[in-house]
């Protein structure tokens, strides 16, 4: 039935735009399908963004009406609040440690699994599992115990629990992110498998060794996937919350060493009820993430290779 009718379809489609009514009906239908999204995008995304920009110029505690204070919140944040800068530095340190380590591990494991004949599916699933479990409070509590005084890490290295030492606590949090390398690994693996085998064969014919093939074929062909993972993981890392909360009982300690940005934002907004100040922090976070993404996109032109563009 369907197959016999198919050839008639293209003319019908070409004729449709000339008739006004069906097209308008279809447009109406589109808005019906879109309506939940439109409502959500305006009421729960656009409007809140505007409101939080407004609130960032006010003093607001949820109970009394917002009180306009101009740039006061921003001035206080940048010049008078050492804990704010502490949270910025903590978050940046965390991003710089966790993201490269996680992606490097993901890439190495993906390369190891790529040509594996037996057990590839098993390893892929097993390495992926922590990505699903790692965001949970259960695992955050395990992490706290493993890195606490008397925990496994203390027994192994004998330098006391990391989470009680300001220089080491953030590393414990970062390692929880590294532990979840499975998600980018799976994406890397899928990317590696899309590289045509002919490219490697051609490179081998030209006398390229394993390393040369990696540098000249794998790296450029994989660069879009690497870029995607880099952007995604960086954005996520800027918003880390649960492990820092669990490791420090919500305080960001010791000595503010795990006071990541979102934890301080939560503390200002929902513990201290400085909603205006927290809104200002949220907007700075938004701008910083936007700026970092823009920089990544800009630099990507020099190192990300898109095969389809190269053909043209």
């Amino acid at each position, binding site marked *: 039935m369907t197959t016999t009718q198919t050839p008639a*379809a293209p003319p019908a489609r070409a004729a449709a735009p000339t008739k006004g009514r069906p097209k308008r009906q*279809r*447009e109406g*239908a589109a*808005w019906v*399908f*879109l*309506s*939940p999204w439109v409502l*959500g*995008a305006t*009421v*729960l*995304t656009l409007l*809140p*963004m505007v409101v*939080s920009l407004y*609130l960032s110029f006010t003093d607001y505690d949820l109970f009394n009406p917002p009180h306009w204070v101009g740039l006061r919140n921003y001035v206080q944040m940048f010049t008078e609040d050492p804990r704010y800068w502490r949270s910025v530095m903590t978050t940046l340190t965390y991003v710089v440690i966790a993201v490269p380590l996680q992606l490097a591990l993901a890439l190495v*494991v993906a390369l*190891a*699994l790529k040509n594996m004949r037996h*057990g590839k599916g098993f*390893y892929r699933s*097993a*390495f*992926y*599992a*922590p990505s*699903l*479990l790692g965001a*949970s*409070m*259960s695992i955050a*509590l*395990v992490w706290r*115990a493993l890195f606490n*005084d*008397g*925990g496994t890490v203390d*027994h192994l290295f004998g330098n006391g629990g990391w989470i009680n030492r300001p220089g080491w606590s953030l590393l414990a949090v970062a390692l929880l992110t590294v*532990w979840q390398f499975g*998600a980018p690994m*799976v*994406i890397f693996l*899928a990317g590696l498998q899309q590289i045509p085998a002919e490219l490697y064969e051609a490179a081998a014919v030209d006398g390229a060794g394993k390393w040369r093939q990696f540098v000249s074929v794998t790296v450029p062909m994989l660069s879009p*996937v690497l870029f*995607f993972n880099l952007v*995604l993981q960086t*954005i996520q890392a*800027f918003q880390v919350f649960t492990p820092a*909360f*669990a490791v420090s*009982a*919500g305080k960001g300690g010791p000595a503010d060493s795990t006071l990541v940005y*979102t934890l301080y934002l*939560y503390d200002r907004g929902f513990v201290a009820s400085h*909603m205006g100040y*927290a809104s200002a922090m*949220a907007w700075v*976070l938004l701008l910083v993430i936007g700026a970092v993404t823009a920089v990544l996109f800009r630099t990507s032109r020099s190192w990300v290779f898109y095969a389809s563009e190269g053909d043209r």
Partner: protein
Amino acid sequence: MTTTASTAVSRKPIRWGRVAVHLGCLAALLVMLYPLAWLLATSLKPANEVIASLDLLPSHLEWSNYKTAFEGVNDVSIWRLLGNSLLIAGGAVLGNVISCSLAAYAFARLRFRMRGPLFAFMIATIMLPHHAVLIPQYIIFNKLGLVNTYWPLILPKFLATEAFFVFLIVQFMRGLPRELEEAARIDGCGPFRSFFKVILPLTRPALITTAIFTFIWTWNDFFTQLIYLFDPDKFTLTLALRSFVDASSQSAFGPMFAMSVIALLPIVLFFLAFQRFLVEGMASSGLKG
């Protein structure tokens, strides 16, 4: 390892490179799985063994940890906590599957004014940090008297606010042959019937991926639940576990980790049942972008 290598030798030479890769992977796997094994072991350890010894295995199995865990926290039974968690996760799954597939169909197949800019906006909201909208959303729900209810956790999912899933389903729908809908249209189907009768059944893999990821992410969610829920009897498993965060007494360790195991169980079961969907879904989301 050596035995498998020697049986292979009769047919072809031992590939030492491959053996090394396998050994490396197994070693990495042991390190990776250690925290999970530790969790399981600790949930069955007597209180005095939790910190004192490095031994992974308990001297005897302390099932009373689970008994204590089942009594719950703050006089709220664990069944209540489980039910609350399930209610929120179930609501979120339903909301995301319905609203995201509706929006995705419009973006993937229908023509309407401003489609390009709206699609770009939708993609941009994937990158948007949750915190930029968090406080006004909280104020809105506060004004509506909905703080300390489940509405702030479920309602947004019915409004397709998780654009990642809209995008995932759009990508999937774009891969479906257009001829099917053309045929349906010639047979007299409008956009609604062709969506429900033709497109939706074919989109099932993407919908399952959406459902599973929504379930797991909502189940694990902590931040939103932390700010919206106050009453202990409205708590989820995650929030109940949180009350252990402040407790430093080590006697509570066994029951705390018993409860942690219970909280992870649904995810582990989902993973075992749907690992193909999860792994493939993750892989394709990264590539088609």
